[in-house]
């Protein structure tokens, strides 16, 4: 028990003058209510006023303007007539070709097939890579043993797996998925590991002091703390999934493999129809941009804003 149980509120109040002079040496407030009032005054002085979120038009208008400029430059180049029109088609030719592909139903089929496979492959990769990454990041001997291999796999282009996959699985969806996994899983694991490496050591100490078990520590301290790095890994993992998928679809055509964007691209090459090739390239690009804008962009922004990491960034 405290040796002197006198409640603070009953402490004799001093003349205001001497309180100010000796602020750091003795009690400075005169009781509980006074303290509450002082603190709330200081709190409102020291906290930032809340800012409202507005729609930032420049975020929408600037990219659209950039796109318009690029298309105009393209059209201008084509109208100069430097190259034959069948080698370098203009924007209008490509749009017309896309209309034709749409009417044939080929465009929808290709986008849907690829998108479906890309997303399924990516989600399965996340489900595999997350526990593996956490385990590698948390268990030192495992990390030392497999870390270099995982980094190496990230450097190895996943296209290199296509011949092996065709020999093992034939021209089936299994080939496509295998290549996607080999592309996405190592990069997600690496992202998670580097996210964990960048956690301030203080967070683990706090977790220990608060009595977190090993599992609680991993799921409720390490994983959320590593989330920015992990999200970076996921973005890269998606990019690798999508690229690997396109590579696989271009190389492995036929069999029970459906008709994807890569297949459309390869068909354009076989037919020597540059408008089909350009259409396929633009569609592959468009899907990548849309996923970034609609999925990763908002998640990342929300994550950074909640942690107060957005101030001063150019995002």
């Amino acid at each position: 028990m405290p040796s002197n149980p006198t409640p603070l509120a009953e402490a004799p109040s001093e003349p205001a003058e001497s309180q100010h002079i000796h602020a750091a040496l003795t009690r400075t407030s005169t009781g509980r209510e006074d303290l509450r009032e002082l603190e709330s005054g200081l709190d409102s002085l020291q906290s930032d006023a809340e800012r409202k979120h507005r729609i930032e038009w420049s975020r929408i208008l600037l990219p659209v303007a950039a796109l318009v400029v690029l298309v105009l430059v393209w059209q201008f180049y084509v109208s100069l007539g430097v190259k034959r029109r069948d080698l370098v088609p203009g924007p209008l030719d490509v749009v017309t070709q896309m209309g034709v592909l749409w009417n044939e139903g080929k465009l929808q089929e290709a986008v849907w097939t690829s998108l479906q496979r890309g997303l399924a492959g990516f989600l399965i990769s996340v489900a595999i890579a997350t526990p593996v990454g956490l385990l590698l990041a948390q268990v030192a001997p495992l990390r030392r043993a497999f870390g270099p291999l995982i980094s190496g796999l990230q450097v190895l282009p996943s296209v290199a797996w296509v011949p092996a996959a065709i020999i093992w699985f034939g021209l089936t969806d299994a080939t496509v998925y295998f290549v996607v996994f080999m592309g996405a899983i190592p990069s997600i694991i690496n992202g998670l590991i580097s996210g964990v490496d960048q956690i301030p050591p203080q967070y683990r100490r706090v977790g220990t002091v608060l009595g977190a078990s090993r599992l609680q520590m991993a799921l409720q301290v390490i994983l959320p703390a590593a989330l920015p790095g992990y999200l970076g890994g996921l973005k890269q993992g998606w990019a690798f999934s999508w690229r690997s998928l396109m590579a696989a679809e271009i190389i492995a055509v036929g069999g029970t493999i459906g008709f994807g964007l890569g297949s459309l691209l390869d068909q354009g090459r076989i037919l020597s129809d540059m408008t089909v090739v350009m259409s396929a390239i633009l569609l592959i690009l468009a899907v990548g941009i849309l996923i970034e804008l609609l999925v990763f962009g908002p998640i990342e922004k929300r994550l950074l804003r909640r942690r107060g990491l957005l101030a001063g960034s150019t995002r």
Partner: protein
Amino acid sequence: MPVVLEHLGKRFGDGAPVLDDVNANIAKGEFVALLGASGCGKSTLLNIIAGLEAPTSGALEVPSDGAAFMFQDAALFPWLTARENIELALKFRGVGKSERRTKAQELLELVHLGNAGDKRPHELSGGMRQRVSLARSLAQDRQLLLMDEPFAALDAITRDLLHDELERIWKETGRTIVFVTHNVREAVRLGQRVLLLSSRPGRVVQEWAVTEEHRTDAGLAGQLTGVITARLREEIRRHAK
């Protein structure tokens, strides 16, 4: 006696001892200020009491359920709101979901932050963060509370207020507090006892009792501050070459 330290020593590897023959008894409900210059092993001693590090010699007796700990920086998790930070401590302690909510609100109100529960750490001022951190360490519900220079990084106005706040909360909750600081005024302002630790190696060289009169009589408090400062400087001067 919640904390008994007997001939406690600590050295890292083959280096010079950081702590040597530290002896102290801290009674239940007592507020002890542990004062020392840099390099006296204050933080190491606190880590040993908290069970984060093991002593290399001597014996210590601490409460079997361990100790709550408050750090110099608030060390709140930035992905959680103030309330969720407190709730996480309750969760790790095994408190049920519905009870966590009410308990966290009670603790927020105890530190006068009843309305700031949904704010995130980056939206709070330094003083508010430290109060959330205090509420979180109270959520651990340990008799023993260890504080490692918790107000060192705050501005003077906020620090003075938090001294009053901490004293009030200590009286309301009856915790045993070991408060590490390098600030003599702070030690005299808060502690019932001030233990002075020497530097390299750390050892308790002298202690002073602080009475209720020191809390209200600035002259008396100033006098004691002067005496302790003189003794502290004597310790520091020993290391002059």
